[in-house]
């Protein structure tokens, strides 16, 4: 089991008021799986994603990633997990605006201490993997939304992590670009990458093999036969 979350609770403190956001989340993902998490806005999807991505800690609960007890790790070790085991993709791409596509993709490699020449080669290979080998020198402003997201995916995958976490990866894209991203995810998953994708679009979620729903911080798994009626 690559991801194992047990009884995860997350509360936010807001002016002496405790707001529960995640309530008793249990989520297990096997290596190589493709899982979607659906839910309306404000239901706690991003909060859960941040916990899975080792950026945030739950108020209570247990979390094992590749068998490691994440909640016991120190700040420095968590950086290492994010660097080597997890790739992040966001709705708004988060590319460095003044760096070329290649430089953006190479960024995690510099934190991994990879030498300059190798950084370039590996970043270029990652760009080729998402079909943007020819756009390596382009600046983010010279790329379309779909292309930007593909650069972001190349950046997430450049260190060959086992897990790809995507928070509404198609949320800012038109349906054609969105479909391209879904194709890419499909291919990465076939290559063995475990994918956890957040979305509130049922069509997008349908690309995944398993779908979870979060409503008001509570999670439930959808059985494939069941017809989903949530269109938010």
């Amino acid at each position, binding site marked *: 089991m690559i991801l194992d979350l047990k009884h995860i609770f997350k509360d936010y403190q807001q002016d002496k008021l405790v707001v529960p956001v995640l309530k008793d989340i249990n989520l297990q993902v096997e290596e190589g799986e493709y899982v979607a998490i659906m839910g309306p806005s404000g239901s706690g999807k991003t909060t859960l994603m941040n916990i899975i991505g080792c*950026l945030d800690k739950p108020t209570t609960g247990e979390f094992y990633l590749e068998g490691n007890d994440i909640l016991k790790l120190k700040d420095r070790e968590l*950086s290492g997990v994010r660097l*080597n085991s997890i790739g*992040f993709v*966001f709705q708004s791409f*988060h590319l460095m605006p003044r760096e070329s596509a290649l430089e953006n993709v190479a960024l995690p490699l510099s*934190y991994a201490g990879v030498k300059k020449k190798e950084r370039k080669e590996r970043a270029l290979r990652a760009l080729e993997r998402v079909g943007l080998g020819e756009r390596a020198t382009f600046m983010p402003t010279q790329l379309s939304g779909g292309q930007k997201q593909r650069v972001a995916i190349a950046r997430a995958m450049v260190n060959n992590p086992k897990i790809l976490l995507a928070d509404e990866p198609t949320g800012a894209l038109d349906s054609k670009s969105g479909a391209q991203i879904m194709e890419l995810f499909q291919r990465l998953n076939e290559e063995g990458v475990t994918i956890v994708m957040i979305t509130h679009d049922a069509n997008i979620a349908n690309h995944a093999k398993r779908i979870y729903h979060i409503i008001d911080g509570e999670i439930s798994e959808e059985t494939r036969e069941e017809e989903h009626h949530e269109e938010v």
Partner: protein
Amino acid sequence: MLENIRLSFKGIWSHKMRSFLTMLGIIIGIAAIIAIVSTIKGTNEQIKENIVGSGDNTVDIALYQGDWMYEMGYEGIPAGVPVINDDIVEELKDIPNVKNVSLYLSRQDYAVYYLNTALSGGYVMGVDENYFSTCNFIIQKGRGFTKEDYTKYHKVALLDPDSEEALFQGEDAIGKTIEIKSEPYIVIGIVDKAQEFEPVINSLEDYYTYAEDSTGKVYIPDSTWPIVYQFDEPQNVVLQVESTDDMTNAGKDGAAILNAYLQVSDETIKYRAEDLLEQAKKIQQLSESTNSMLIWIAGISLIVGGIGVMNIMLVSVTERTQEIGLKKAIGARKSNILGQFLTEAAVLTSLGGIFGVLTGIGLAEIISKVTDMPVAISVPAAVASVAFSMIIGVVFGMLPSYKAANLDPIEALRRE
């Protein structure tokens, strides 16, 4: 690291105006320091050159009464002042780093004439045979004194260019007869310092220092001194030493040796070396202490500049919250973020330092053009300035960098 420096330059370049304004405090502070240091250095070098001279490395030892050179009255040499004989001269020659020793007599005399032209305020110098070689003089025209001139009491004189000009005003002096206290002396030659030395006169003090030197001197063999002057003059000693830095010690040692022979009742009468190096140092210290205050003020402006850098960096951290959050999400450690921002601050202030040095050099050149003050650019000061600017960047970049490194990545990513 190199990657961080590259990114820093990129960031600075993309915010040219803001970066420049941020650096301005540092630029002004460093420019002021460089300008001040350059003028201090220029002035000091000039003071040393003016006072110590062209490096002929000679020290005069004369008899003083209190703070003034002993003035001959009608009573002559005070009782108990010894005749400086060959034995004492040998003793003086044994002082470490002393190359040559000569004796001379000197008196300011208003009664030196060529026809009706007077050498007013000039000095008559009775010198021993090797005086000119000790003091690095060369015979410019005519001939020098010979052994015979001394043994046979020839009334012959050598002039320096100042007295030649004052008495003869361009006329050829060689072979002409001048009068010293009504005694006729034949001019046989012109002597001058071997090394040409043009004093630079900037102040009244400088002027007085040179006024004395430039009134002209008339040299006669010391054996003929009694023909002109009834009273013996106390003997003066001139030591030639190896290097300028030996002047102070050799002068002190020489004066001590001579004082050991003194048996005068008046305690204030003492041999003393004219310590030009000490004098130069004192004047230098004076100019340095006034200017060190200016340096403090410039230093404060540097600190103000540093605070400005800190301020802008704090703003920049807030602006770049998203960037920091993303970097943390993709695996950057706290130390990576800290390093990035510290490098940025250090690059920014170092650049400011470099611009400051250039501005300061320009400023110093302008000062020297406008005020005629000499300037000398100090390379160590320039290097130290840039290094110091870098340290300011690191120190004042610390707080913003820590803030960036400790930013909560979730908060940072939420801001969309």
